[in-house]
């Protein structure tokens, strides 16, 4: 049973086909290990330059800053993974239903789940911390570095314990929620907390990193004693041989917090395991409240007259509003975009002399233009991915029996939904930033110029899939995770950074701006026309097909 629960942590419908847990596990571990390796070349150059300085202080401050950055990173990654697994931290309704007929005691079930959870957490933490713990001290090697040999275990232990503290805290948080919140409110509140956690962790990490300044590390403020990453930096310093009173105090707090977190996690497991089953089974039997349904209700009748378009538009809206998985995935994409935007602004606003430098002012203007582009890229990518995930795939017969002759109308609803619920809100949400940074006229101009690439991107996504959202089968794991990260990295660099620079430079010259506007408008109309033509000649897709290369080899997935 322990093995079953452990493997279930990797058996995600989003990442792989059922049973392909090995591919997911190897992919996750590979990505985590790669993080450390990717960071090294940049750091190496930095420390080479710092080693040439006449005093060791900047070198030491940089070391402390990077160790703190690593602790923050592993805490954030652990938090993100735990938040993603939020609904698997305790036994689920399916576990109770499937195992109900077997002679397994509730205590055994919980013990198996908890040990599997702990094993998953430890694997995750060791994968995240192992490579950086070796590579970071290797970069520190030099005259100013001190005892590098002691740094390897110090960084590994402190970063791992920091991650474990984060992991235990989140498990304990859910344990408290499970026991404290009434059954009828639990699902809603739990989902809200999961979304908030993901957004805070994803968007907060770059912001926190921007706040780590050398002056704050040199003379840590008293309130640092309230910051968990600072506790584990203190622990690292103590293990590396620095035993001043402030460091010792921070290290004591680190150990105390870890013990308290672990005890709270175990405690909530022991406290609630009997009540948990009762609550879960009872809440499953309770229908959702009418208020919940009516609260999510859309009123698209006012803007759409064609009943078939209205059917698809309302279906997409209701599915997004009511499916926890869909909301979670969209939250992750929006949080990544928010993180990028926060990071670009924070690093600019906090850099010294920012207001005086001409290039920094231009960078700020570019960041304002990049905000809608980044947000639209991630919101549209998120929706494109979400639309591919089926919701009760076998219920798609209702669309299939009504698709003949209505393809154009049904797909027009998807376009309308994306314009109304993605492109337009992104443009409106980011308009105040553009107006504030660029001024009224240039702000509106930038908003218009940024809306067109969003529309082109939307068309590119739509032309790739002739399907009604949530109705087609899904083949997960078609691309390795690393390849996906590289694609998104390239997209951010090309679509966001390059286009933002182009739009920002065109704002100074009305003729250039008009030329750019006409070019983008032409491109949008061309892509849209091609897609509309394609709709007339092809049928809707309800089954996701294998990659063409697989077909050409004559191979089929089992």
């Amino acid at each position, binding site marked *: 049973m322990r093995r079953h629960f452990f493997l279930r942590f990797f058996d995600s419908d989003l990442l792989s086909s059922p049973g392909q847990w090995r591919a997911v596990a190897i992919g996750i571990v590979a990505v985590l290990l790669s993080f450390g390796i990717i960071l090294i070349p940049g750091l190496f150059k930095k420390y080479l330059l710092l080693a040439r300085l006449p005093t060791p202080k900047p070198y030491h401050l940089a070391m402390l800053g990077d160790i703190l950055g690593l602790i923050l990173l592993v805490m954030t990654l652990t938090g993100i993974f735990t938040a993603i697994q939020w609904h698997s931290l305790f036994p689920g309704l399916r576990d109770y239903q499937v195992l109900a007929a077997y002679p397994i005691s509730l205590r055994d079930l919980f013990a198996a789940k908890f040990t599997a959870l702990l094993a998953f957490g430890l694997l995750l933490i060791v994968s995240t911390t192992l490579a950086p713990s070796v590579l970071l001290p290797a970069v520190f090697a030099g005259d100013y570095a001190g005892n590098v040999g002691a740094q390897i275990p110090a960084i590994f232990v402190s970063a791992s314990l920091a991650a474990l503290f984060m992991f235990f805290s989140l498990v304990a948080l859910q344990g408290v929620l499970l026991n404290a919140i009434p059954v009828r409110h639990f699902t809603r509140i739990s989902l809200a907390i999961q979304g908030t956690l993901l957004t805070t962790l994803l968007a907060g990490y770059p912001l926190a990193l921007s706040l780590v300044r050398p002056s704050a590390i040199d003379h840590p403020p008293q309130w640092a004693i309230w910051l968990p990453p600072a506790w584990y930096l203190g622990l690292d310093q103590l293990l590396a041989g620095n035993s001043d009173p402030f460091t010792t105090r921070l290290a004591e707090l680190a150990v105390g917090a870890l013990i308290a977190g672990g005890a709270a996690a175990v405690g909530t497991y022991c406290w609630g395991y009997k009540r948990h089953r009762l609550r879960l089974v009872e809440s499953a039997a309770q229908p959702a409240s009418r208020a919940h349904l009516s609260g999510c209700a859309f009123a698209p009748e006012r803007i759409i007259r064609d009943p078939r378009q209205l*059917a698809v538009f309302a279906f997409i809206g209701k599915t997004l509003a009511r499916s926890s998985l869909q909301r979670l995935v969209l939250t992750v994409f929006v949080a990544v975009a928010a993180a990028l935007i926060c990071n670009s602004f924070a690093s600019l606003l906090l850099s010294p002399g920012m207001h005086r430098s001409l290039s920094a002012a231009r960078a700020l203007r570019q960041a304002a233009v990049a905000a809608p582009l980044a947000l639209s890229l991630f919101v549209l990518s998120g929706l494109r991915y979400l639309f591919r995930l089926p*919701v009760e795939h076998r*219920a798609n017969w*209702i669309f299939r029996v*009504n698709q*003949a002759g209505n393809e154009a109308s049904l797909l027009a609803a998807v376009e309308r939904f994306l314009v109304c619920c993605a492109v337009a809100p992104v443009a409106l949400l980011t308009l105040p930033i553009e107006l504030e940074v660029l001024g009224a006229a240039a702000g509106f101009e930038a908003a218009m110029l940024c809306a067109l690439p969003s529309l082109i991107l939307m068309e590119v996504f739509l032309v790739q899939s002739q399907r009604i959202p949530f109705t087609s089968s899904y083949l997960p794991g078609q691309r390795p995770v690393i390849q996906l990260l590289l694609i998104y990295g390239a997209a951010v660099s090309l679509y966001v950074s390059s286009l933002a620079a182009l739009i920002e430079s065109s704002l100074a010259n009305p003729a250039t701006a008009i030329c750019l506007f006409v070019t983008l408008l032409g491109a949008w109309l061309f892509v849209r026309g091609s897609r509309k033509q394609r709709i007339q000649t092809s049928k809707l897709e309800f089954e996701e097909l294998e990659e063409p290369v697989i077909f050409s080899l004559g191979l089929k997935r089992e």
Partner: protein
Amino acid sequence: MLDIHGLTKRYNGIAAIDGVSFAIRPGEILGYLGPNGAGKSTTVKILTGLIEPSAGEILFRGLNVRQHPVAFQRLIGYVPEEAYVYPHLSGREHLQLAGRLRGLPRRIMDRRAEELLRLFSLWEDRDLPLSSYSKGMRQKTLFCGALLHNPDFLILDEPFSGLDVHTALVLRLLLRRLADEGKMILYSSHVLDVVEKICSSVIILRNGKVVAADAVERLRDLMQQPTLEGVFAQLTAQDDPARLVSGILEAIRS
């Protein structure tokens, strides 16, 4: 009238149905029978447009359905074998989805949906998600969705599954009345006593081929069997139930 000639569907060269031909006249309820894997659901899926046939012709009022799928699909109402519905939608929203996809104007759709929900005793639960409905309630919702646009041809695949006795009785009477109004009904089922009560004629499939097609009474006379169940057992050559039971009991005791 619906005419089907030589309908064939092959999967990787293996025929799920092979040269199936039959006709349904206005006012007729045709029972479509066969053991598991005989090809009933394949035929139903072809008729609803869910899958394409490998060969054969379907004519509806003289119109080739494969050449005019839109006109045909507007006239059919369909209750699928399993009650697959979107669990996050409420009963009323399911009917709105069905009605809108059929292109019904809002005023007509809302009025009919409300009346059907009341008549099928679903009104109180109209705004609850379908995930909280019982199997019978979902089946009733599917029936409402199939009737919402007043179709000329009803395709029912195991329609009484999960329904209580009273609702099943109401629906039996309803089907009879709909047939009296000239509608065509294809009734695919395993429940032979219900088929015997409501169907005017039956088709029996075995291994994808039609082995019998006639009125229920004539089949009983021809096969010299007192019930449709006897006719069915003789035509489909099922294993002896008593021998199977003995085998199962031996297996669990060994």
